[in-house]
């Protein structure tokens, strides 16, 4: 388990305090913490558990349930491909394969230079734009497999 630096500890405690250290705010606390640090390693989850006075198992239960939360650092440009029904039937799987090939990583991994990470998720609520890919906060709709390389080039 990696040790947290004291400034990180202070920041996490501050986030918990901003939600009144309330058990019911766990998801909000996790959101804010991930936004700040990029990911939620074990040491961070244990500290949050202690601050909210709940068990580490409970925190891990929530983190492991929602695909949004991650225990591994993401790339500078996190790629999320929607595999919801609409996107799936319109070829999202081919898009995933193309990304895997172009970046030479598997789903859930980060490129060695730390630039891109690749994840799949279920329905971002933009089915009209299927298949949908999110890179960071930007939505790319109606993406076809043969456009993947071109899209990645924009982030070079």
């Amino acid at each position, binding site marked *: 388990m990696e040790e947290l630096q004291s400034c990180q500890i202070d920041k996490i405690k501050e986030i918990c305090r901003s939600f009144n250290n309330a058990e019911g705010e766990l998801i909000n606390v996790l959101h804010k913490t991930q936004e700040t640090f990029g990911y939620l390693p*074990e040491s961070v*989850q*244990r500290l949050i*558990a202690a601050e909210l006075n*709940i*068990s*580490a*198992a*409970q*925190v*891990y*239960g929530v983190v*492991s*349930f929602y695909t949004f939360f991650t225990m591994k650092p993401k790339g500078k440009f996190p790629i999320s491909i929607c595999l919801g029904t609409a996107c799936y039937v319109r070829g999202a799987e081919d898009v995933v394969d193309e990304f895997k090939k172009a970046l030479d990583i598997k789903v859930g991994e980060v490129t060695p230079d730390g630039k891109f990470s690749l994840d799949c998720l279920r329905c971002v609520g933009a089915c009209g734009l299927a298949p949908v890919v999110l890179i960071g906060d930007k939505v790319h709709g109606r993406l076809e497999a043969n456009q993947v390389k071109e899209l990645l080039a924009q982030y070079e």
Partner: protein
Amino acid sequence: METIKLTIDNKRVIVTKGTTVHQAAKQAGIHIPTLCYMNLELLNIENKPGGCRICVVEQEGRRNLAPSCSTVCTEGMVIKTNSPRVLNARKTVLELILSDHPKDCLICPKAGRCELQTLAFQLGIRRIHSVENAEMSTYRKDQSPSIIRDMDKCVMCRRCEMICNKVQTVGALSAVNRGFMSVVAPAFEQDLKHSPCTFCGQCVAICPTGALTEVDQVQRLIRALTDKTKTVVVQTAPAVRVALGEEFDMPPGSIVTGKMVAALREMDFKYVFDTDFAADLTIMEEGSELLDRLTRYVAGDKSVKLPILTSCCPAWVNFFEYNYPDMLDVPSTARSPQQMFGSIAKTYLADKLGIKREDMVVVSVMPCLAKKYECQRDEFKVNGNPDVDYAISTRELAHLMREANINFAALPDEEFDHPLGESTGAGVIFGATGGVIEAAVRTAYELFTGNKCPRIDFEELRGLEGIRTATVDFNGTPIHIGIAHKLGNARKLLDGIRSGLYNLHAIEIMACPGGCIGGAGQPLHQGDSSIIKERFDAIYREDAQKTIRKSHENPYIIKLYEEFLGKPLSEKSHHLLHTHYFEKK
């Protein structure tokens, strides 16, 4: 109270408002099968996630089937619990559960006691549809000193999660991941031994399948019994004798002390002794400690730590070592009866018998799974040799007896061996919540006041209420006593003391519901809490039958102090019968 009329399977039923369909059916004598649902009414423990859908019923006018465990009765409701649609749905649900469950039932440790197996039998499942080459979700096995987790067999009933978090407030387990990979596990799916688990084992006691089981020592024990160089000595905990009979189809609450002794002797245990003797010894030490602290407190010594907390329950010890590291000097330093027995057996008894401690094997039969962990603690070893070699559960003893062809019902009643087999009623009641403190009061009263206690039975200390307090008059000095069973209640009581809500002198805490009689090593109650009540009553019946009912009047205890220990809290006693606690993180 407002009542509601409804019809279940053409029977008119009247229930109070708020009753569920499942409860109403039970009242009408109709059994609706369940898997995740469990209600231990007398112990105030309920699991109702509404997850398994085995208990579905058909409700007139409702489009889909209703889960009876979590559907509340309404006026004029018409329910069918056994229509073809219901039976079909139940079978489909069960087949789906079984499609992701291992099929090694013949050699499963839960075989014959598995609720999933019973359900498959009841519902007449004859085949399990499965997709060709379909994978089953599989997980790493996890073995702790007490508990084995084989989550391949988990059906996500979430009973363990409920008891670990809501009842015990231990927080070792939580449902993690999602979809096929969802499972109940410790934080970060690490091993139980790296979690806050206290090994109370209540998760094992209520797991419907073989996902959670105890570490089985029976085969190693059989090897020890057949080793001619070893002298195998056994001790039996008080709660075992009021529950063991259930494993042999006797009614709950049967007292089988004599038959149990006969069975152990028949299986070649060289000496059959009683943990109750060590319980009496515990009272001498713990009672003297209480007395010492009280006397100093009354005299105005401000450094005295009160209330004194009992330390017989190993799950409770683990709990405070983890959760209350700032209070490690508050509990009594007295070891548990199991460990006192082991310590005395491998010194006093070994000397008497003229054998080396390495050649003696001490076995304990316990209603408890945490005892398996306790006897492995380093403090209870001398040069690596443990004071207690094997702690087996009541269930394991029953397994061993079945394996050895013991016809239990036909056995005669036999007596324990001497000198470590003589015990008093005070030792017996250690098995029920409130019993340890009542036993302590019987002795402490007489040592404190110097007078004979006018009564033996302290009814005010008995009961199944989760937290109880009472004041006992020590001849003019009021002694305030607190009792808690289930670790969540222990936490409430301790937090109440910190906040000044309670002002108490002595507190007894037991981790399991009802005390040791409801321990995780006992025959499985399968959701019937009346069994715990029967055992509870039986413990006090056994106490009432005893000629001697106060620990300090046990002649063999008196002799032990004369011949060996000197007096309670002597240097030798401290060395052999006391311990210290460590912060766990």
